[in-house]
């Protein structure tokens, strides 16, 4: 179908030139009617975009009807940018696509005005125009989706950052509860967060709790080792806590060498050790025998 139409030329340019104002008014009116998002975009801005699109459409269609051709590059760029902005402003996919598709009606009205006498020419022109607008509309939707995907990816990265919180347990003692899988990307983020926190809080001990890490294989172990080595290079030491019995078995079976890294089954044990290593001591004050303990 497309190849058949490529041989045809479009008369849109002259039609648009003749009925420009009518097309613009009709288009903007239709859009504002159906998608009244004046909260997101001003009418003047919308008019500007429509006018620009119309000019570019006239220009491109005078050269070819093949929307994949380079003559349509400026149009595509404009649509990509508009779509991206719409996506970030909070428009829905439908609202964004409506920007393009709602030009059909006014264009068809204009075409009928110009070619009404010749029904065959009018039908051809309308079909051609429909194909072109559909193609551009689809492109707009794809660009919109791409922006959405980028936003999702960025938010995923931010979630990654958030899911590696470093907690200060005591003066000079940090805890890093790891939750989820530990891949290379995650390890980088984890390492950086931990080391930055060590410097910022002057902490000599960091407890890495792996209760929330489902499996510990050689890869994960390597990542943990890297983190501990980096911390040691800086002058801090790490204790690994939350080692479940299965993990202990896996570590031995896989022949993973944890060097001289101390491991503890519970965070509590790790904390006790950290306190000792830091030279602190918890003292429970003596109870006075003569005082009646109420409550």
């Amino acid at each position, binding site marked *: 179908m497309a190849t058949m139409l490529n041989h045809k030329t479009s008369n849109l340019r002259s039609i648009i030139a003749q009925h420009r104002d009518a097309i613009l008014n009709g288009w903007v009116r239709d859009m504002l009617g159906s998608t009244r998002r004046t909260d997101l975009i001003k009418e003047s801005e919308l008019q500007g975009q429509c006018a620009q699109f119309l000019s570019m459409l006239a220009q491109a269609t005078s050269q070819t009807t093949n929307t994949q051709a380079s003559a349509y590059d400026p149009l595509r760029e404009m649509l990509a940018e508009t779509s991206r902005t719409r996506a970030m402003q909070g428009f829905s996919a439908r609202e964004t696509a409506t920007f393009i598709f709602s030009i059909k009606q006014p264009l068809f009205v204009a075409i009928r005005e110009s070619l009404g006498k010749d029904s065959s020419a009018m039908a051809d022109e309308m079909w051609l125009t429909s194909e072109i607008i559909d193609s551009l509309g689809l492109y707009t939707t794809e660009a919109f989706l791409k922006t959405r995907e980028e936003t999702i990816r960025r938010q995923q990265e931010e979630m990654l950052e958030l899911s590696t919180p470093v907690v200060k347990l005591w003066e000079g003692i940090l805890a890093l509860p790891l939750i989820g899988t530990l891949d290379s990307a995650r390890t*980088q983020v984890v*390492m*950086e967060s931990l*080391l*930055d926190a*060590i*410097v910022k809080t*002057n*902490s*000599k001990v960091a407890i890495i709790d792996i209760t929330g890490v489902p499996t510990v294989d050689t890869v994960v172990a390597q990542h943990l080792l*890297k983190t501990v*080595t*980096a*911390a*040691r*290079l*800086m*002058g*801090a030491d790490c204790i690994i806590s939350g080692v479940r019995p299965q993990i202990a078995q896996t570590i031995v079976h896989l022949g993973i060498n944890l060097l001289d890294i101390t491991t503890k089954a519970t965070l509590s044990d790790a904390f006790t050790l950290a306190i000792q290593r830091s030279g602190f001591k918890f003292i429970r004050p003596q109870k006075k025998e003569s005082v009646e303990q109420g409550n």
Partner: protein
Amino acid sequence: MEKIPILRMGEFLLVTIQVDMHDRLAMTLQDDLTNRISQTGAKGVLIDISSLEIVDSFIGRTLGNIASMSRVLDAQTVVVGMQPAVAITLVELGMSLQGVRTALNVDAGMELLRQTVNDHEEREYGSYFQ
């Protein structure tokens, strides 16, 4: 010619490396340091690298050499202030700082030096004096 200054802090020496070290500077530092240790009878050396954004294998070797030389002269060495980015790079590029003790900052370094010197002396002389 530029020299890296060596400050005296009690029975310890403090060296702050702030510039990109090259061959000659490293040699000069080793010379100056070993001389100062001898002159002052210093028991410990603190090397502050908190200004170093890059630690390559050359710097690493230099630090290692300084630690070894000092040990021969009966002084302990502690390197302090390594930046996180540097630590991560050393680990990722597989470089190690063999035989060099580290601490987070000058204070922690001093404490570690005191401990290390005490332990060392206890080990060395402890058996002689009961």
